[in-house]
């Protein structure tokens, strides 16, 4: 019995040291935020993500195992704009970790200061409009210029949590921004021939990307955000695509391809399936390769 007690006490002590104190434990809601945090934090952070890039980031189960990840976090970073409304509160409450509650330094809304699109201008927002986000379209990470702002937000917060490493984080931010500027030139060069081209999309994940690279959205397969395609709406989509000679249907990896393929067969357009998050495909290993993948697949699709 005594041995058993000693063993249990040792387990408890060991478990409390299982997570190292020398690095900042960061939990992000998406793999995009994880990739950016790793670029800024380098070896001073240990980062994990709740959602995987293959998943629809709107629908993530609040599993108790996620509460354990949140319990050990020093910093919780979310996309914000109510993208995580279905699971964030449950996970944070369940974690019993005060550091990461909203309002504390351990809670960062990455959307602070980003350029927002589709902020509702109507006096009333309700569910007759589908799954609208009252604070704006939350898919802002698909604009690389917004990601520079996110990287700066993360740098500032990591510096606040570990002031002695501020220089290190700032240096990493410089490197990140420089690479982003260089990649922007490369991506713009690749996308330049298609400037002004109209495309069809499945879900409104793409306005930020489309806007940044000079494309235009002609129609969506979803009749309203989050509402699955209906036969009547697909007919309208087909008419628009034929009229505007749309060549591409851009869609995420986690949606059913059948409605898109049906529309493609009717219109001669090509279905281009791309990841909208890091980890969505094997090639999209970090933020830069995510945009590389999207740009390459779109340019191949035209």
């Amino acid at each position, binding site marked *: 019995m005594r041995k058993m007690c000693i063993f249990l006490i040792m387990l408890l002590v060991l478990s409390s040291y299982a997570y190292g104190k020398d690095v900042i434990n960061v939990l992000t809601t998406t793999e995009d935020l994880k990739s950016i945090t790793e670029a800024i934090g380098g070896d001073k952070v240990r980062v994990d993500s709740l959602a995987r890039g293959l998943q629809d980031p709107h629908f993530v189960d609040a599993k108790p*195992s996620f*509460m354990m990840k949140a319990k050990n976090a020093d910093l919780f970073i979310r996309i914000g704009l109510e993208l995580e409304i279905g699971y964030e509160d449950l996970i944070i409450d369940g974690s019993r970790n005060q550091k990461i509650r909203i309002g504390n330094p351990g809670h960062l809304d990455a959307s602070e200061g980003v350029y927002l699109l589709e902020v509702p201008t109507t006096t009333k927002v309700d569910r007759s409009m589908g799954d609208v986000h009252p604070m704006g379209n939350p898919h802002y990470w698909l604009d690389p210029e917004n990601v520079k702002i996110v990287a700066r937000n993360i740098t500032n917060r990591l510096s606040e949590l570990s002031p002695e490493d501020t220089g290190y984080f700032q240096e990493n931010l410089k490197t990140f921004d420089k690479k982003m500027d260089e990649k922007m030139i490369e991506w713009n*060069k690749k996308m330049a021939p298609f400037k002004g081209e109209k495309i069809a999309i499945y879900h409104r994940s793409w306005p930020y990307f489309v806007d940044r690279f000079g494309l235009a959205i002609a129609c969506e397969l979803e009749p309203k955000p989050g509402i699955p395609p209906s036969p009547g709406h697909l007919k309208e989509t087909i008419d628009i695509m034929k009229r505007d000679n749309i060549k591409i249907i851009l869609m995420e990896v986690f949606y059913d391809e059948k409605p898109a393929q049906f529309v493609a067969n009717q219109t001669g357009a090509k279905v281009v399936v791309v990841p909208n998050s890091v980890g969505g495909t094997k090639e999209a290993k970090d933020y830069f390769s995510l945009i590389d993948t999207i740009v390459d697949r779109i340019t191949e699709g035209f």
Partner: protein
Amino acid sequence: MKKALIFLIIAFLFIPLAVTDARGNEVAQLQQEMAALRSQFSEMKMSYETRITQLETKIEDLQKIYSIRAEKPQIAPPVQPQSTSLGRYFQSFNPDVSVIGDFTYHTTDKKNEEFRNQFQMRQTELAFSASVDPYARGDFFFHVEQENGSWHIGLCEGYLTLLTLPIEGLQAKAGKFKVEFGKANKYHLHNLPWVDYPNMITNYFGEEGMSEPGVSASYLIPNPWNKYIELTGQVVNNSNGASFAGSDSKDLVYLGHLKTFFDLNEESTVELGSSLAAGSNNGGHGRFGKNMTTLEGVDLTYKWRPLQTGLYKSLALQNELLFSQKDRAYFDDGTDIIDGKRLNSWAAYSSLEYQFAKRWTAFGRYDFSEFPDYTKNRENAYSLGLTFAQSEYCLWRLQFKRTNRNFDKDENVVWLQCDFGLGPHRKHEY
């Protein structure tokens, strides 16, 4: 003299040749230098031309970027997060308010059923949730139901959750809440995966499970594997009449629940729980001594949802088992009460749900249940159903249930259910 003259003439003849040779060498040298200069110049020219071309390309690219930026009037100007969020924060001083309706039509071959062949607004839930202060949140759930022809409103749950206790991993609750016994007891009517509660719940805890005023403390037990292990202890009023004393009781029921949860992989999870509840029961009050009821429960839930196609496919297998030991008083010859008879009974259910399309889920459930007071009475029930989720906030469900009883006629029931919700109702636990 003549020799000197000849020498001079020869010298004159050869000097120009020598001079010509020297000049020729110089010219050749100069030509070489010129060629070298030309090649250096052309190299420099090429290098500068290349650099100019590169710079021109860069300028062109930058111009494109800026022209794209300039040509996008649809981009909203940078929105200050404070200003975007400010309205939200002001709004958030009010609690999140939700209303959820549970509407049914049901038909049964049991002729004395109150709502037989009737439409019924079975329940309306009013939910209010908000942070109370930096240390706690509050949740209230009121149920409006029809009873004997008139409408009544009752408090299903209303509790304060203390989120910031000094001991890490500890959380506490005070108020009226659904007790932590197994899985199904905690469900509200509208978030059941079936139309009705399992027979185990209705027979051992009452029509909508056991919800009592009391206090609760739960602790996440630290462990080297960083797994979710939660231990909950609760003390609630002894006002549940199905297994315990009922509303006239002045004592308490004690509950314990241990829950472990682990991921088999990123797509599959297992939850294993064990529950214990103990308290005095009806027979133990007044002049007849203090008889006890003890309930033990085990629950096992397996869930699968693929990462990439999780919007369209999922599976849940949920099982619960309950054992009851109830000391009870019983009438002997209809005149006296004898204490001490212990009734052992048990109940269980097993449910399988399979989502086969974005909006469609099929389910089946098997129920076996005895009764806490009549162990010889048994029910076996078989349910099959189909759920159509119009959206996240509205579902339609059709369910057939056949119940075989050894103490009454068998019963066949068909329900059509519609659940719909307004407002930002907080999501339920996994």
